[in-house]
């Protein structure tokens, strides 16, 4: 099983895991991105992901395929949430199963690292002080 998906609903983690089960695999590594209650000193109340889905899915599947080929793992899937989310919700999940654990760790990390830089996904944080910011856009601004 190899796939990248986008979901507007809470992710069903048990179903997600089940897709990756494989009797030939001794190792399973999962990464979850959780909505954190703070960022750069600000208290976060909730957040929103904007995803340009046609390209995110295409490029996400490309990343999954690269990871499977590069690390020779058996199965790899990822789902990214879209829209508004509360604290502690799962914003993204990546799962990899493989006969041995080293490759599963490497592939899982590759997928989330690449996803964070290559996918057209943006995060807006809503703060306790009433402000809201597109994350990372402060840091990369030419001048403030």
């Amino acid at each position, binding site marked *: 099983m190899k796939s990248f998906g986008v979901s507007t609903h809470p992710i069903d983690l048990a179903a997600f895991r089940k897709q990756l089960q494989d009797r030939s695999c001794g190792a399973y590594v999962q990464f979850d991105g959780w909505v954190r209650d703070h960022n750069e000193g600000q208290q976060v109340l909730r957040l929103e*992901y*904007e995803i*340009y889905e*046609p*390209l995110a899915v*295409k*490029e996400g599947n490309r990343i999954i395929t690269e990871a499977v080929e590069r690390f020779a793992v058996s199965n790899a899937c990822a789902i990214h949430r879209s829209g508004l989310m509360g604290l502690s919700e799962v914003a993204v999940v990546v799962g990899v199963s493989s006969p041995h654990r080293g490759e599963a760790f490497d592939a899982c990390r590759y997928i989330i690292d690449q996803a*964070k*830089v*290559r*996918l*057209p*996904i*943006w*995060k*807006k944080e809503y703060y306790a002080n009433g402000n809201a910011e*597109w*994350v*990372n*856009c402060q*840091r*990369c*601004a*030419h*001048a*403030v």
Partner: protein
Amino acid sequence: MKVKVRYFAAFREAAGTETETLETAAVSPAELFVECAKRHQPLQKYSASLVAINDEMADWEALISDGDEILFFPPVAGG
């Protein structure tokens, strides 16, 4: 030539619009972004990070053609 431009997330808010159709002489997405930032001043404080042409990720120096849809992506969410 005529191209369609599409802005996402922070860019959409800075440009005040999601899409627009422009008459341009820009040959590449890089040149086109500079033009767009002149039309929409708030865009000038940003550097774009990724660009796509007709739903395919593209290079900033790719050639654009009449009728293309250019997608400007602000820096992604990152770590």
